[in-house]
C-alpha cells in the first residue's frame, strides 16, 4: 500500500513545490525538487537486503476490481534495479539541472513538473504488475517525454522532435496494449506474475505469437531499436539534463525492461529469441556505424545510445535462448542474462556522465559541433578527465566497468554461435561477426567523441563563447557517475551480488530459483588468455587503426543517398497522412447543411433498421391497440390531409395554416388519448406559434422552390420515405412488445402519499422531475436571449434604424 502511494510521490511533490518556490525566492526551484528522488532512493535502498535473498515486496491498491485492474507495486530484483536507477540518476540529473538551467531565464516550474511527472510514470512502469496500469504509466512516459523534448517550444526542431518521438512511441504503446489484451484473453488475468506462472500453457495458444510480436513492437519503439530508432536522435533537442535522464538512462530502457519482464513468458518461443537477438545486433551495428557520421556531440551520443540499447537487447535475446538449452545454468549460456543486466547498469552510469559532459561543453563554449571544438583539454581539465573515463568505459577498456560487461557480452555472443536454434545454422556466427564489427565502431566513436573535443587544435575564433572550466556544482553529478564507473571495475561482484543477480533471477526464473543460484563470477583477468580477450585485443587494434585514418574514410558516409533513409520515410508518411486526411474530410464536408442532414437521416435509418433486424425486435401485432372509434378516424384523416397540404402548398400562408391545423388536430388527439394537460398546453402553444409564424411571414420572402430539380426531389422523397417507414416500424414494434414494466407504477402509487398532489403529470413535472422543468425554463430563457440578441445585432451593425417591426 505504502509503496503504491509512493509511486505518486513525485507528482504530489510537483503540486507542493510551486508554493514553496514562490515563498522562498532567490533559491533555485531544483533544490526543493532534489529532495524527492533522494528520499525515494533511500527508501528503495531499504529493500536491497530483502530482495538480495530472493524476496519480493507487493503493495496493492484496488482500482477497478470488477475488471481485475489494480495498481500494484511489485518489487523484485528487476524492478528494484530500475527503481534505483530512476531515483538515483534522477537525483543526479536534478542536481545537474540546477546549474544547467538559469533560474532567471528558464521556466523552471514547467520543467520540474514534467520531470516529476516522468519520474512517477517511470516508477509505475517498472513496478506495475497489472498490465493495464503498466500501459497507463507507459503512455505517461511518452507524454512527459514529449513535453520535455518540446520544452524549448519556440524552436522548430524541438517541436518536430517532440512530435516524432510521440508518434513513434505512442504507436508502439498501442500495439503493446493489443498484446496485453491478447495475453488477457489467453490467461484470463492482467497480472504479469500470474501469467508467468502459467507460461507453459500460454505457449500452446494460437494467439501466442501475435501477442509476442505486438509486445515486442512496444518494446522496440520505446527502446529505439531498428527501424524505430529515428526518433531518438531528434529527441536530442531536449535540454541536456533531459537527454541524460530520459534518453539514455531511463525511459529508453523501459523497452528493455518490458522484454526482460516478459522473457519468462515468451522465452519458450523461438520467434522471440530470433527477433530479440537479431534486431538487437542489427541495431547495435547500425547505431555504432552511423555514430561516427555525426558532427553534433549529442548526435554521437544519441546514436551510441541506440547502439548500446541494441547490445543489451541482443543479450536479453540470448538470455531467452538459454531456455532452449539443457542445464543452461552450468554452461556458458548462463552469462548472457547477467551481461544484459550488468551492462544496463554500466551504460546508465557512463552514458549519463557523457551526456552531462556534452551539456557542459555546450554550456561553456556555446556549441556542440565537433568540427568547431578541439583542444579543450587544457582549458577544462576536470571535464576532460570525466569524459575520458566515460568514453573508455564505453569503448570497453580496463580499468572501467564497461570492460567487464563488454567481455561478458562477447561471451554471450560466443554462446549464441554454439546454439543450434536458428534456421540457418550459421546465423549465430553472422551475429557474432556483426557484434564484433559493431564493437570496433563503438571503439571508434568513443575515441572520436572524446579526442576530437578535447585534444587537437583549439579554435577559439569558431566558438561563440570563450571556453573555461564549468562551475564545480555542474561537475558533481558527472563526477559521481565517473567514480561509479571506476568503482564497478574494482568491485564488480559486490554490484553483481546485490543488484544484478536478483534481477537476473527475475528474468530467468526457468533457470534460477533464487538469486544465489546465479553462478556468475566477474573477473577482469581469468588467469589465461580467453577468446573474449583475444577479441577485445582485436577490437582495440582495428579501432585504433581506423580511428587514426578517420579523416580519410569519413567521407564515405556521404555516399548514402538521403532519399532512402528512414527519416525520409517518416516525413513523407506524416505529410501524406496530413494532406490525405484533409482531402478526405473536404470531400464530404461541403458546407451545405442539407448534406449534413442527409448524412444524419441516412445514419438514423441504417442504424435504426439495422438494430431492429439484428436484435430481432421487428414485431407487428394489432393486439392491445386501442379500439378505434369514428372520432379517432375523423381526426386522423384531418391530420393526414393537413400534413399533405403543407407538403404541396404553393403559398406560404397555406402552408402555415395547415401546419396550425396539424397542431390543433394533435391537440384533439391528446384529448382522445386522455391527456388533458397536453391538450391544453398544445392548444396554447399552437396558437402562439401560428401567430409567430404569421408575424415572421410578413418579413420572409415568398415561398419559392428555387427550381428544385426532379432528381433532387426524388432523392429527398426516398430519404424521407425511409425515415417515415423506420418510425412507423419503430412505433409498431414498441407497442406490440413490452420487455419491461413501466416505471410509472411508482408515480401512480406515491403521487398522493409522497407528493400530495392529484394530477400525476403535473406532480411529475414540478416535483419528481423538478430539475428537468427547471432546465427547461433555462432553455427557454436562452432562446429568448438569443432572439433578442439577434434582433439587436442588426441595430448595432447597421446603426441607421432600419426597423420594420
Amino acid at each position, binding site marked *: 500500500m505504502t509503496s503504491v502511494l509512493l509511486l505518486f510521490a513525485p507528482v504530489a511533490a510537483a503540486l507542493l513545490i510551486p508554493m514553496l518556490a514562490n515563498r522562498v525566492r532567490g533559491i533555485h526551484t531544483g533544490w526543493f525538487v532534489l529532495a524527492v528522488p533522494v528520499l525515494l532512493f533511500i527508501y528503495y535502498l531499504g529493500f536491497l537486503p530483502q530482495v538480495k535473498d530472493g524476496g519480493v515486496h507487493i503493495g496493492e491498491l484496488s482500482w477497478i476490481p470488477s475488471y481485475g485492474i489494480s495498481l500494484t507495486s511489485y518489487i523484485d530484483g528487476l524492478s528494484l534495479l530500475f527503481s534505483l536507477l530512476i531515483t538515483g540518476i534522477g537525483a543526479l540529473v536534478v542536481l545537474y539541472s540546477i546549474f544547467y538551467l538559469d533560474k532567471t531565464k528558464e521556466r523552471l516550474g514547467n520543467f520540474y513538473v514534467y520531470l516529476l511527472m516522468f519520474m512517477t510514470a517511470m516508477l509505475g512502469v517498472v513496478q506495475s504488475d497489472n498490465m493495464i496500469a503498466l500501459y497507463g504509466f507507459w503512455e505517461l512516459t511518452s507524454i512527459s517525454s514529449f513535453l520535455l523534448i518540446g520544452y524549448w517550444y519556440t524552436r522548430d526542431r524541438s517541436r518536430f522532435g517532440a512530435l516524432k518521438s510521440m508518434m513513434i512511441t505512442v504507436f508502439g504503446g498501442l500495439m503493446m496494449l493489443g498484446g496485453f489484451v491478447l495475453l488477457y484473453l489467453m490467461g484470463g488475468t492482467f497480472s504479469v506474475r500470474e501469467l508467468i506462472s502459467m507460461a507453459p500453457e500460454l505457449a500452446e495458444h494460437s494467439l501466442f505469437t501475435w501477442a509476442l510480436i505486438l509486445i515486442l513492437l512496444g518494446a522496440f519503439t520505446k527502446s529505439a531499436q531498428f527501424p524505430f530508432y529515428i526518433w531518438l536522435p531528434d529527441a536530442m533537442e531536449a535540454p541536456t539534463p533531459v537527454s541524460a535522464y530520459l534518453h539514455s538512462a531511463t525511459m529508453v530502457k523501459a523497452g528493455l525492461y518490458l522484454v526482460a519482464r516478459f522473457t519468462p513468458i515468451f522465452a519458450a518461443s523461438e520467434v522471440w529469441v530470433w527477433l530479440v537477438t537479431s534486431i538487437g545486433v542489427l541495431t547495435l551495428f547500425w547505431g555504432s556505424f552511423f555514430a561516427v557520421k555525426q558532427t553534433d556531440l549529442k548526435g554521437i551520443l544519441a546514436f551510441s545510445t541506440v547502439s548500446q540499447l541494441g547490445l543489451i537487447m541482443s543479450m536479453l535475446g540470448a538470455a531467452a535462448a538459454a531456455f532452449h538449452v539443457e542445464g543452461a545454468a552450468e554452461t556458458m549460456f548462463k552469462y548472457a542474462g547477467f551481461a544484459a543486466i550488468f551492462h544496463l547498469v554500466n551504460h546508465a552510469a557512463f552514458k549519463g556522465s557523457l551526456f552531462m559532459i556534452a551539456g557542459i561543453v555546450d554550456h561553456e563554449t556555446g556549441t556542440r559541433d565537433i568540427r568547431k571544438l578541439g583542444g579543450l583539454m587544457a582549458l577544462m581539465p576536470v571535464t576532460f578527465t570525466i569524459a575520458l573515463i566515460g568514453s573508455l568505459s564505453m569503448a570497453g577498456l580496463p580499468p572501467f566497468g564497461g570492460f567487464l560487461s563488454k567481455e561478458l557480452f562477447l561471451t554471450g555472443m560466443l554462446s549464441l554461435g554454439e546454439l543450434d536454434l536458428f534456421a540457418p545454422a550459421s546465423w549465430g556466427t553472422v551475429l557474432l561477426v556483426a557484434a564484433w564489427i559493431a564493437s570496433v565502431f563503438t571503439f571508434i566513436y568513443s575515441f572520436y567523441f572524446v579526442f576530437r573535443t578535447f585534444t587537437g587544435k583549439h579554435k577559439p575564433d569558431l566558438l561563440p563563447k570563450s571556453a573555461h572550466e564549468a562551475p564545480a556544482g555542474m561537475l558533481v553529478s558527472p563526477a559521481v557517475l565517473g567514480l561509479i564507473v571506476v568503482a564497478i571495475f574494482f568491485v564488480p561482484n559486490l554490484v553483481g551480488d546485490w543488484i544484478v543477480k536478483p534481477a537476473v533471477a527475475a528474468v530467468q526464473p526457468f533457470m534460477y530459483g533464487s538469486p544465489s543460484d546465479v553462478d556468475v563470477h566477474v573477473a577482469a583477468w581469468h588467469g589465461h588468455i580467453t577468446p573474449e580477450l583475444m577479441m577485445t585485443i582485436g577490437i582495440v587494434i582495428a579501432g585504433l587503426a581506423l580511428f587514426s585514418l578517420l579523416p580519410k574514410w569519413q567521407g564515405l558516409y556521404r555516399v548514402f543517398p538521403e532519399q532512402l533513409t528512414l527519416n525520409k520515410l517518416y516525413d513523407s508518411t506524416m505529410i501524406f497522412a496530413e494532406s490525405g486526411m484533409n482531402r478526405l474530410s473536404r470531400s464530404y464536408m461541403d458546407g451545405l447543411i*442539407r448534406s449534413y442532414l442527409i448524412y444524419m437521416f441516412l445514419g438514423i435509418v441504417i442504424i435504426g433498421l439495422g438494430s431492429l433486424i439484428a436484435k430481432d425486435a421487428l414485431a407487428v401485432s394489432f393486439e392491445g391497440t386501442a379500439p378505434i372509434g369514428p372520432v379517432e378516424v375523423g381526426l386522423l384523416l384531418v391530420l393526414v390531409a393537413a400534413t399533405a397540404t403543407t407538403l404541396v402548398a404553393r403559398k406560404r400562408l397555406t402552408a402555415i395554416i395547415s401546419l396550425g391545423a*396539424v397542431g390543433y388536430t394533435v391537440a384533439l388527439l391528446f384529448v382522445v388519448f386522455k391527456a388533458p394537460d397536453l391538450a391544453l398546453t398544445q392548444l396554447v402553444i399552437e396558437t402562439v406559434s401560428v401567430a409567430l*409564424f404569421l408575424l415572421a411571414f410578413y418579413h*420572409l420572402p415568398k415561398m419559392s*422552390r428555387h427550381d428544385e430539380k426532379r432528381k433532387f426531389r426524388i432523392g429527398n422523397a426516398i430519404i424521407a420515405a425511409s425515415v*417515415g417507414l423506420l418510425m412507423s416500424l419503430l412505433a*409498431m414494434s414498441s407497442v406490440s412488445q413490452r420487455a419491461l414494466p413501466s416505471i*410509472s407504477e411508482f408515480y401512480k402509487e406515491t403521487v398522493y402519499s409522497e407528493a400530495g398532489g392529484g394530477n400525476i403529470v403535473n406532480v411529475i413535472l414540478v416535483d419528481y422531475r423538478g430539475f428537468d422543468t427547471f432546465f427547461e425554463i433555462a432553455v427557454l430563457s436562452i432562446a429568448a436571449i438569443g432572439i433578442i440578441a439577434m434582433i439587436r445585432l442588426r441595430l448595432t451593425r447597421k446603426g441607421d434604424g432600419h426597423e420594420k417591426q
Partner: protein
Amino acid sequence: MSVIIGFLFMAAVYLILSRSLLRVIIGTGLLSHGAHLLILTMGGFAGPAPPVVADGVTDYVDPLPQALILTAIVISFGVTAFFLVMAYRAYQELETDNMTLLKGNDEHD
C-alpha cells in the same frame, strides 16, 4: 396510429431537406408533432382514465410519456421561435432564403 407517425416524419424530413428556409422551419414543426405522438404511442393507450387521482379510480393512463411530451412541446416552441427569428435575420442580412446559397465560405472551414 403508427402509420400516421411515419407519415408525419416523412413529410417533416422531406420539408427539411428542401431548399426554402421557411419550408425547413415548417418541417421542424411537423417533426416535433411526430415525435410527440411517437412518445405517446410508445407509452401505450391502455388505461381508461386520465392520470388524475380521483376516488374509485385505480387504473390510469401512463403519466410519464405525458410529462415528457409536455416538456417537449414547450421546448419545441422555443426552438421554432428561435428558428423563425434566425431565418428572418438571415434573410435580412443575406437577402436569400435558398439553403444552397447559405453555406459557409472557405475562410470558415
